[in-house]
């Protein structure tokens, strides 16, 4: 059996916040040695050993190098010399300012791969635009089109954009490593998170560019297929919680027939205005009212079970408790992985969504405290003596 898939690959990781760490998480989960080069910012983005940080930064190492010091930059460059990939999500100026841009680094490591995951890219008139996930979601149309029935923006209580950028970053990193393995050549990759996100609207954008539509009618009902009933329906409260919902998705006529039987074939299902998909879509409002009257009398899990057993796509709208503690499928597949808190107790992170039969990835360690692996990086990797390391700490070139 092979070792972990990416064993032997070393990544110098300057990324922070969310998007960059998502990209390097994929690499670390599959065995790459990912070394975060970080500043010491107390409490930034929450504690390291519980919550969001373990989710983003498990399996990584951390060295706290002060890049404002010339000797710090020198250390980082020495680290690059023995690494395969350098990745950041700063705006264009930062890495160049340190002399850590691709053109500088290829002089000391000719086959290095550099990936910059900035918000809007390293070129173009808006390369210095200040952006975060919600900014990019606004610029691309996600925020505007995710509306309530009243047409007001209703969405994005979180930065999906950071995940889109991070997933794209993981993919291009592996693609570039693959190319290097075949050709011996490194490269620079200029990833604009806005562009990575824009691709998620592909068919809608083609509708605009091909059909000249002012606005694509992408809405919650028409993203993938014509269907009715189709949507979110409120279910019976459960343990006093009335925020319980189910998604039901009835596309084909066969699914409709199964749906009718599953809900006990009440008289309204045979009304001629619901006979075909076309009619069900035309009379959607009335159909939705009828379906909602059925779901209102069922708990969400029970309704899902009834429908799925009959062969109708339906799913509980899982909240954090459902997802992390109750969902039997995610538990069966051991999706939640335990990592240790400093007191020895367990906390959990979202695991690896795929299983590789021969070289499964693994969650091996919790996220590092900033600088947790200083000694390993300076001593073992860079070969500095204890006295040299002490001097670096003493001069705050590396933060303890």
């Amino acid at each position, binding site marked *: 059996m092979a070792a972990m898939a990416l064993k032997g690959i070393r990544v110098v990781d300057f990324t922070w916040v969310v998007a960059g760490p998502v990209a390097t998480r994929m690499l670390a989960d599959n065995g790459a040695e990912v070394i975060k080069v970080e500043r010491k910012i107390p409490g930034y983005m929450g504690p390291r050993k519980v919550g969001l940080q373990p989710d983003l930064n498990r399996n990584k190492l951390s060295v706290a190098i002060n890049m404002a010091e010339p000797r710090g930059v020198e250390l980082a460059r020495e680290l690059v010399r023995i690494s395969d990939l350098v990745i950041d999500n700063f705006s264009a100026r930062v890495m160049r300012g340190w002399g850590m841009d691709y053109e500088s680094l290829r002089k000391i490591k000719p086959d290095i791969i550099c990936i910059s995951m900035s918000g809007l890219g390293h070129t173009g008139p808006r390369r210095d635009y200040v952006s975060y996930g919600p900014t990019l979601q606004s610029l691309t149309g996600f925020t505007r089109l995710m509306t309530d029935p009243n047409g007001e923006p209703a969405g994005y209580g*979180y930065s999906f954009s950071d995940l889109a950028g991070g997933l794209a970053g993981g993919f291009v990193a592996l693609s570039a490593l693959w190319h290097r393995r075949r050709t011996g050549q490194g490269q620079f990759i200029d990833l604009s998170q806005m562009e990575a996100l*824009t691709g998620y609207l592909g068919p809608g954008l083609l509708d605009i560019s091909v059909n000249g539509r002012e606005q694509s009618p992408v809405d919650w009902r028409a993203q993938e297929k014509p269907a009715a009933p189709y949507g979110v329906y409120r279910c019976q409260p459960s343990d006093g919680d009335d925020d319980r919902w189910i*998604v039901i998705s009835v596309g084909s006529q066969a699914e409709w027939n199964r749906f009718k039987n599953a809900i006990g074939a009440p008289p309204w299902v045979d009304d001629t205005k619901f006979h075909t998909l076309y009619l069900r879509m035309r009379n959607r409002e009335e159909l939705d009212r009828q379906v909602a009257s059925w779901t209102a009398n069922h708990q969400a899990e029970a309704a899902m079970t009834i429908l799925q057993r009959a062969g109708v796509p339906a799913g509980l*709208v899982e909240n954090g408790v459902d997802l992390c503690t109750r969902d039997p499928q995610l538990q069966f597949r051991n999706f939640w992985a335990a990592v240790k808190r400093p007191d020895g107790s367990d906390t959990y992170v979202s695991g690896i969504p795929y299983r*590789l039969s021969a070289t499964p990835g693994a969650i091996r360690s919790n996220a590092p405290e900033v600088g947790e692996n200083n000694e390993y990086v300076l001593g073992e990797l860079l070969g500095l003596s204890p006295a040299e390391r002490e001097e670096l700490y003493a001069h705050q070139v590396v933060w303890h």
Partner: protein
Amino acid sequence: MFADLGADVIKVEPPGGDDGRRIAPFVDDRPHPDRSLFFWFYNLNKRSLTLDLESERGRELLCELARGADVVIENFGPGRADAMGLGWARLHELNPALVLCSISPFGADGPYRDYLADDAVLTAMGGMLYVNGYPGRPPVRPLGLQAYHASAHYGAIATLCALFARDQDGAGQWIDLSMQAATAGALEHVVGSFFQNGQPERRRGTLHWARFFRAGKCRDGYVLHCTIGDWTSLLEWVRGDDAAQDLITPEWHEHDHRAKHAEHLFDVLDQWVVDKPRDEIVARAQLLRQPYAAVRFPGELFKDEQLIARGYFVEVEHPELGRSFHYPGAPALMHGTPWRAYRRPPLVGEHNEAILCDELGLAREELATLIAEGIV
């Protein structure tokens, strides 16, 4: 994603074409398997082979193809490929170096293994849907088929990892990907927040969970407010417009105070922008390094000076229609291995002859027979 970087991706479709070809929108709103823009977007740069996998001969030909392939990717559903004699055991025997990536809604085992799901159901069961929308109102579906896209990315990443592992010992392997888990692995805050606080995250409208962003209605649309930039310069601006109300008190200088009282803060900022034009607010804000943004419609992306300057939209020629169209382009500018649009999406079965006769060595007469029998 693989085809865009130069892999030869053969899309194996049932005779008549993949179901994706029946999904709207269509060119000029005329439904036809070769005119689906949904299919176009997801199948750029690929070749098409039609093959009836219900037939013995169709399956034999598929096995021939798999013998010479690096990767097979399928999403038939758990157990289906096995039942057709095209599962891991068979393909691995034929080609020990092959990587098989199986993508299914809930994975190949477990209590929900046979549950049916589309993107909407997966966003629900992957924890994404619940946190979108306003409290007290129904959850709002995330835009952009996010469960599918997250699954696709994880699938591509897992496949590349398997190819790296193959370099170590020459052996292929089987990937079993759960789309529900991929969705749960693409949530920003939901999981970490639950394991830290023991409480589920709730819907907050457009108020971001970190409480520094919210959309607000202005004169001609919406802007995204942001209170994470330099507070003094933002406050000066608002004060200059006599709209700061109680925000002038010193505690608002504190980051934590602004987060804690975000609802009130954004209410005041909403009143401040209500009569201002969107683009004027955003232009001035960005000059002040305030991460404000215009809440735009996707149509505006085609006029976006940044995307244009970076050549984001690429022209793809469709000779049989006598027209060229602008497609969304590269997710990243890869200077050594550029993303390219080098082949428009395939017509149904467009490459049958090239693949079966020129590459697999079938006689042209045999192809004619297969076509007559409806196998190709």
